[in-house]
């Protein structure tokens, strides 16, 4: 399968002289769900922030389709078919749910924006009754739904999520993961960073294990779930958060 996103030998960090990730490579294809796991400080969030253009890249390549993303302003990423949902502060709390969605649809022509917002409410019907409410009043799960709904408005080929299950009740985690699986079935590539490793690996096709800013292991999730090396690198150190 041809890779949709190819990351090769990526080195990046908050400061160019202090890289947090060193030479990381990964690929993801259309309709694939890939999880990145690793102990705290492994550079998981740094990796997807760098791919999203939010952190300076000092070395390596990031290619989406045939488009190199290195050096592109992050506000242009949605135009190239990429969406990113940060872990925290991923909604505009002072804007209404409707305004959050309108903002996500700003890059689209007006009629298409209206259709996409209506489709977002169809996909996440729980949000409909809150459309005029300030997003800051939503529950954790509803916020995550809104963040995902907004990221999907521009019809991305790839959606990257940083710990979508963080702070959610188990039932809500199941619901959020269910939505991600549905997206993947629709042909969208989903790349997520997760601390909730086992739950994420169970729904994903492949998993990358990072440690200390480098690739350590990767392969089909069902195989890595049984691999004692993963437990040694990550699960053992995660203090039972699996």
């Amino acid at each position, binding site marked *: 399968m041809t890779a949709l996103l190819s990351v090769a030998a990526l080195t990046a960090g908050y400061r160019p002289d202090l890289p947090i990730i060193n030479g990381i490579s990964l690929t993801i294809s259309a309709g694939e769900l890939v999880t990145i796991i690793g102990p705290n400080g492994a550079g998981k969030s740094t990796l997807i922030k760098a791919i*999203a253009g939010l952190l300076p890249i000092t070395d390596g390549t990031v290619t989406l389709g045939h488009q190199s993303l290195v050096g592109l*302003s992050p*506000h242009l990423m*949605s135009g190239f078919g990429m969406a990113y949902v940060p872990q925290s502060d991923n*909604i505009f709390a002072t*804007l209404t749910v409707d305004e959050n969605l309108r903002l996500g649809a700003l890059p689209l022509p007006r009629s298409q924006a209206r259709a996409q917002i209506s489709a977002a409410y169809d996909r996440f019907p729980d949000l409909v009754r809150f459309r005029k409410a300030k997003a800051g009043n939503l529950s954790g799960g509803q916020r995550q739904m809104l963040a995902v709904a907004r990221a999907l408005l521009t019809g991305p080929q790839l959606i990257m999520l940083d710990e979508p299950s963080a702070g959610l009740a188990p039932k809500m985690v199941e619901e959020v993961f269910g939505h991600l699986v549905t997206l993947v079935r629709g042909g969208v590539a989903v790349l997520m960073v997760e601390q909730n490793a086992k739950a994420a690996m169970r729904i994903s096709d492949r998993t990358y294990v990072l440690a200390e800013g480098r690739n350590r292991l990767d392969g089909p999730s069902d195989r890595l779930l049984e691999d004692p090396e993963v437990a040694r690198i990550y699960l053992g150190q995660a203090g039972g958060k699996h």
Partner: protein
Amino acid sequence: MLQALADGLLTGAIYALGAIGLTLTMGILRFANFAHAEMMTWGAYMALGVLTVFGLPTAPLGPLTFGWPLLLATVVACALTVALALLIDWLVFRRMRDRVGHLTLVFASFGIALLIRNVVHLIFGGRATYYTTELQIAVRVLPDLRIMPDQVFTLSLAVVLVIAVHQFLQRTPLGLSMRAVSENPSLAVINGVSLARVVRWTWIVGGALAAVAGVLYGVTVQLRPELGFHLLLPLFAAVILGGVGNVVGAVVGGVLIGLIESFSVLVIPPGYKLAIPFLVLLVVLYLKPTGLFGGTSGGR
């Protein structure tokens, strides 16, 4: 009492116009721009400059002391103030953004404020001046209330502009982007909002409003190079009282500061009136640092 209320509303309306621009800059650009009040001075004097250079007739419009020429000059002054704001951003703030700390930007804005004030002083001189020499008699509206037509015009224009800015921020895509950047710039950017465009429009809206506020102050009080310097404290008090980044807060804050100043002279000597915004500022920072309406950015 009624007279104090009317005077307070008028001063407050001018404060509100200045405070909107200041709160937008503080909320979106995330630093306290001490040069904002000087943009009011610049705008006020640019209008005077246009009237003088083009020798426009000063025939008054109805009961007002000024006519169409001043209104046209105000439009030009808005453009020149926006140009100044964009030039300063290009020369100074843009190069410093994301590279230096918040305080460095604040000190840079102090320097720019001094520069603008002294350039105005150099060009126009230090003496107080007026747009027109027409005299205006206050009209007795009620037994205890006298109002000048210029004041009615000022108040009406301020109300129209406040409503227009509010509608712009609430109803237009650009306004939505500005509110989003004010709350969370990096989230706005990953949603496709161009930060450079929002910053540009913040200066355009803030600069134009500062120019109008400066002209209205010049119409109802007088023109002095220290105009902005004297308005600095009330503007910051209005912004902090309303909540940094909150436009409705800035308007309410501006009007409240105007009213408090105006009513204060009923109990304290007028000479101490200028200290009132400072007291309000201290009380707000002590009791409710996020302001009456809560901030949308750094103040959160």
